[in-house]
């Protein structure tokens, strides 16, 4: 039963990572491309780590705190890095499909 849940979580996480990376390839400009990796891939990694944690618990390795550490750290830092990359793209005036804001708005 728990092995089944773990397998489902691992498959879900890996497919989310794949979908996020396909989004990185397929979206038209940098501002839309930020959505795929920073949201979907991070969520997929969370599911994968949860599945791995359940499986390690079944193997008798005890409750792994390290997986929870990785999940917490990635969920905290992914929005920060996305914000900084978006700010750098605005600063460099990268091409956007729906026009850029005024020069004054960027600072």
């Amino acid at each position: 039963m728990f092995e089944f849940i773990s397998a489902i979580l691992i498959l879900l996480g890996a497919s989310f990572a794949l979908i996020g990376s396909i989004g990185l390839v397929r979206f038209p400009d940098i501002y839309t491309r930020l959505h795929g990796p920073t949201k979907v891939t991070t969520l997929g990694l969370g599911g994968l780590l949860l599945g791995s944690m359940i499986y390690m618990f079944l193997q008798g390795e005890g409750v792994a705190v390290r997986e929870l550490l990785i999940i917490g750290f990635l969920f905290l830092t992914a929005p920060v890095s996305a914000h900084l990359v978006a700010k750098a793209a605005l600063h460099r005036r990268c091409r956007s499909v729906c026009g850029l804001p005024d020069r004054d708005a960027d600072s």
Partner: protein
Amino acid sequence: MLNVSINIALTMLALAMGCNLWRLLRGPDVTDRVLALDTLYINAVALLVLLDTADGKPLFYEAAILIALLGFVGTVAFAKFLLRGDIIE
């Protein structure tokens, strides 16, 4: 059952890293390359954790934590450099 799902997941992660590598090589601007590198870090963490799960022994967790930490620091440093032209002001 878990072996089959782990093999499928490894294939999916390899495809995802291939997509990231394509964007890293192609990306029209340098910010695209930074974003692709950040995604590559996250997928590398996922790959290491999955390899650990396949073995059933926790061997690579320290490496995964290190990649997660240093990937974030690297992305912040790249973005800071693109914003200011300098990392430590």
